[in-house]
């Protein structure tokens, strides 16, 4: 330890900065979160405004918190979203926690500087109907909203919900002893059920279902209960037509439309962070050689890959996270939409995961991790129960508790918030920013002046993503020259486009002006900020 005292001081000050969060070691339900958001807005009225985007079918409001100084909406901005997938209730805590941390620190010089350059839009929870199941009397992992849908396409809706057979307020699993079944007890941990591996000579002796009965006697269990459409399956990129919980067509849901409209209306947003199952921070995405199929972009593009790699490294450094969560392919998911269709830098992570060794079963790895991390009470022991669909057979209810594998214990959340805050603010400091360099005035004689300069992107992030470069929702930077009274522009464009600038790249411009006076040169766009300079020609 180099300087334990210094570390202690830093830790203590951070502790007190974040201590309000420590006192409530709980995830926040809708009412609590709404109140917290309103309070935050009241506490920091000049820096922060709260807007309701839409009311869901379940009567809950989706809120957007804008944090910034000065002309907030006309500065480059970062959007932060939680609740992208309802069962990941950590997401809303991290998103709101980030907003709250940012405001608490707003008086610090470093934060002041950042807010001067970058605005933040935080949407703590975009699936409030789904996340609320965490706090309901009957808890199960739910990603879907309140819309009545026919999930199994049997032309009935909600005809086969879960049932809490053992009345423990949780939906886990049931296993049925049956030689026709294809499941076996895992050799790694005898609490876990795994599919039998025929290639290893295993044959199954259990059937496994989610907890419930087959209400409509179609052989499937609990396949069509309450709700709904999954926010994280309803976006346009790689959308699955008639997919499970994907909605009838992309952006069919009020939540999704409201968030998409909010983002599309904000041309100043250049990057998006989301907390959900998709991850490109644990493992950055790899560009493939065939990144385009026709005109469709199908994998991350080269110069965007560079930034993703950097951001992923920073994520590991700052949060101390090791390895990566399981890679979960999305269809119609938010993270991919934000990159491929919205055209912005898009980062996503579940925010927490546990290590899984090579060849290890995920559930067994989890139980091992839980045991060594004092996470008790994550498992419901297999207990026999009666079951109307299996009269006379041995049926047991049990399994890993819902939410346990994807959300950490509530008392670990404050530390995660602190790490997330440091991570996002570090990345935010790499925002694109333009400056004029090498401004030169040459007197060409006869009252004719040659003005030349470079527009330099002094940030690390490019002025827009490579994927967004040809996207109509990305503003094109422009450079313009305004001549004074009596001056004439002899050569050079009055208005010209500035092509995309990667980090630390420049573009050069020059004009020929006749006549003394002041010319005003303006360069930029909403997502990079606009810079101006007045040049006296005398």
């Amino acid at each position, binding site marked *: 330890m180099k300087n334990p005292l210094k570390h202690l001081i830093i830790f203590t000050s951070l502790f007190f900065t974040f201590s309000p969060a420590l006192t409530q070691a709980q995830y926040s339900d809708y009412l609590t979160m709404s109140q917290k958001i309103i309070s935050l807005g009241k506490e920091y009225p000049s820096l922060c405004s709260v807007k309701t985007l839409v009311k869901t079918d379940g009567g809950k409001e989706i809120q957007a918190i804008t944090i910034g100084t000065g002309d907030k909406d006309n500065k480059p901005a970062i959007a932060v979203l939680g609740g992208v997938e309802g069962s990941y209730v950590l997401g809303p805590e991290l998103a709101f926690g980030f907003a709250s941390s940012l405001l608490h620190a707003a008086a610090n010089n470093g934060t002041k500087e950042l807010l001067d350059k970058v605005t933040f839009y935080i949407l703590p929870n975009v699936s409030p109907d789904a996340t609320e199941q965490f706090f309901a009397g009957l808890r199960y992992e739910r990603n879907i909203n309140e819309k009545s849908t026919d999930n199994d*396409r049997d032309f009935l809706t909600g005809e086969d919900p879960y049932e809490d057979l053992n009345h423990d307020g949780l939906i886990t699993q049931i296993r049925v002893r049956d030689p026709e079944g294809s499941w076996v007890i895992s050799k790694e941990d005898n609490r876990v059920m795994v599919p039998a591996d025929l290639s290893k000579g295993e044959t199954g002796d259990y059937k496994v279902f989610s907890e419930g009965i087959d209400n409509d006697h179609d052989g499937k269990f609990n396949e069509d209960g309450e709700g709904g459409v999954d926010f994280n399956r309803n976006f*346009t990129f790689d959308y699955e*037509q*008639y997919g499970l919980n994907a909605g009838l067509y*992309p952006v069919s849901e009020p939540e999704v439309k409201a968030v998409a409209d909010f983002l599309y209306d904000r041309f100043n947003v250049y990057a998006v962070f989301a907390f959900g199952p998709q991850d490109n921070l644990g493992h950055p995405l790899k560009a493939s050689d065939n990144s385009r199929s026709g*005109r469709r972009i199908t994998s991350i593009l080269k110069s965007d890959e560079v930034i993703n790699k950097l951001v992923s490294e920073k994520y590991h450094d700052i949060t101390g996270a090791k390895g990566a969560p399981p890679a979960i392919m999305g269809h119609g998911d938010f993270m991919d939409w934000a990159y491929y269709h919205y055209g912005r830098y898009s980062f996503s992570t579940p925010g927490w995961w546990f290590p899984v060794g090579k060849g290890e079963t995920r559930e067994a790895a989890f139980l091992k991790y839980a045991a060594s991390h004092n996470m008790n009470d994550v498992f419901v022991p297999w207990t026999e129960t009666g079951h109307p669909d299996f009269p006379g057979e041995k049926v047991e209810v049990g399994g890993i508790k819902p939410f346990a594998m994807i959300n950490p214990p509530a008392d670990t959340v404050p530390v995660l918030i602190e790490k997330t805050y440091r991570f996002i603010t570090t990345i935010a400091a790499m925002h694109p920013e333009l400056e004029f360099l090498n401004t030169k005035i040459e007197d060409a004689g006869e009252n004719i002046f040659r003005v030349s300069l470079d527009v330099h992107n002094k940030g690390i992030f490019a002025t827009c993503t490579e994927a967004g470069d040809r*996207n*109509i929702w990305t503003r094109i930077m*422009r450079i313009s020259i305004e001549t004074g009274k009596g001056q004439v522009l002899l050569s050079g464009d009055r208005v010209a486009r500035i092509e995309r600038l990667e980090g630390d790249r420049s573009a050069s411009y020059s004009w020929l002006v006749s006549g003394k006076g002041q010319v005003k040169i303006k360069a930029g766009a909403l997502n990079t900020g606009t810079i101006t300079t007045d040049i006296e020609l005398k």
Partner: protein
Amino acid sequence: MKKQIIYIFLASLLLLVSRTADGQKEDLFFHAAGSPENPRVEVSWNKYYTYSGVVDLCKRLAKAYPDLVTMESIGKSYQGRDIIVLTITDKNFRNPEDKPGFWIDGNIHSVELQGTEFALYTAWYLCEMRNENDFIRQLLKDKTFYIAPTINPDAREYFTGVGLPPRSGLAPRDNDRDGKYDEDGYDDLNNDKNISQMRRKNPNGRYKVDPRDPRKMIRVEPGEKGDYELLGYEGIDNDGDGLVNEDGPGGYDGNRDWGFNWEPNNVQYGADKYPFTFPENQAVRDFSLKHRNITGAQSFHNSGGMILRGPSIKEGGDEAYSRSDDYVLDVIGKKGELMLPGYKLVTIWKDMYTVYGGELDWWHGEMGCFVFSNELWTPYLMFYDSTNTDPYEFDRLLLFKDAFIPWQKVNHPVYGEIEVGGFNKNFGRLHPGFMIETDAHRNAAFCIYNAYQSPRLEITDMKVKDMKGGLKEVTATVENKRLLPTHSASNLKFRIDPPDYISIEGGKVIAGMIVKNIDLNTATEQKKDPSRLEVDNIAGYERVTVRWIVKGGTKYNINVKSVKGGIATALAE
């Protein structure tokens, strides 16, 4: 006596006058084959209609035929105009939603007007011929037509009134991505409500006036001296950014806004934020979702003389086409080629270009319908000759140069003295007045053929056989007497609509089964709820035989209920 004579005289005069007033029509006309003899709604088909004209015509039709026509607004356009749909069917015979439906719309693209007139003609013709023609009378008993004359009324109004909008509607868009919206559109420099070509005298120009025809500009030969340069469409660089007419009103394509195989703008030009960004399409979407009996559709466009069918993208994306579906589309399409001389059946991705998120894909992919999109008008129609398609000659001989705006001098703020002229916006893609009705009729007939081929289910071959133990065996065959199946491949792939239900009433059902082979007597039992048998699909001209074992009863009601096939009932005894 004198008084009585006067009264009699006046009475007979009155009678004569009134008889003459009625019989005036009969005296003046002789029935031409296939046309309504005495239309209640008088219409000129050699015109294009403004939005007000369209509404007026719809109202008159609805008023004249209340037992056939229901007029409703299914939603509002961006600027608040009603999107009108006429539901046309014999309302006295069965519920409109219980009959196979056919959807027609026109004018989704602003300049593509004639789809509206053709849709209106179809509506008018069906109504006016109902009392005069057995086929039409039966058709309106069997089918329901849903006709939306214009699904882009804002831009239609802009086109007919002001100038040349893009294909889109009028919601402002920032096409050049400079933060300003619709700041630099076409400019009507000579105020003639047309956006024509600009030309300027230039001794070094590459164009000259055709010596045979002062309307025409032709390129000069290499080395030859020219007189003119062409400067593009009428316009000014309104926002001083060095580009002309780069950001006019609207700027999206309403036909790339549909929720099936949708792709964004950089892949599919014209797409916007997400499917159904625009209210007009939202209205049609919502209507389609509420009218799942619609089994076929036509969306009119111009031009090119094509009968377009899917698939729209090369790999088909999420589209599903089966051989039998292809057969159905090809049979109908080929009939179309026969009925519409100059028109060719074209597969969108193969013979035209890939289209993502088009309306056709919505109807086919998401709603499980059989749909065509006709691109109306082709130069072939000028002289019914694909080798002579000279618009100048056509304009001169048949339109007496009415379609050409003579070149006139105009002052341009940047270019100086220029000349503006060219073909009128009502020519080139739009049928000239005298040709509207003919092609409207042919296309209406094509729609009618489409609609006629939608499923028609009949219950035939009913047999009631006594069995041991007082049980009865009731067998019935359901036959689809038309070409279209009750479920397209798309419908089956995604389970868009429920299966066809064949049910029996009149006794206690012990078992129900679908007979696979009536001669070999093989059948598959339906264990769950046998009184209502489920059949996934009844293909074109297919017969499905079902059987129940019933206890009790003497007469049995057999009902067929098919979302897209309509209903049928019969009594078995």
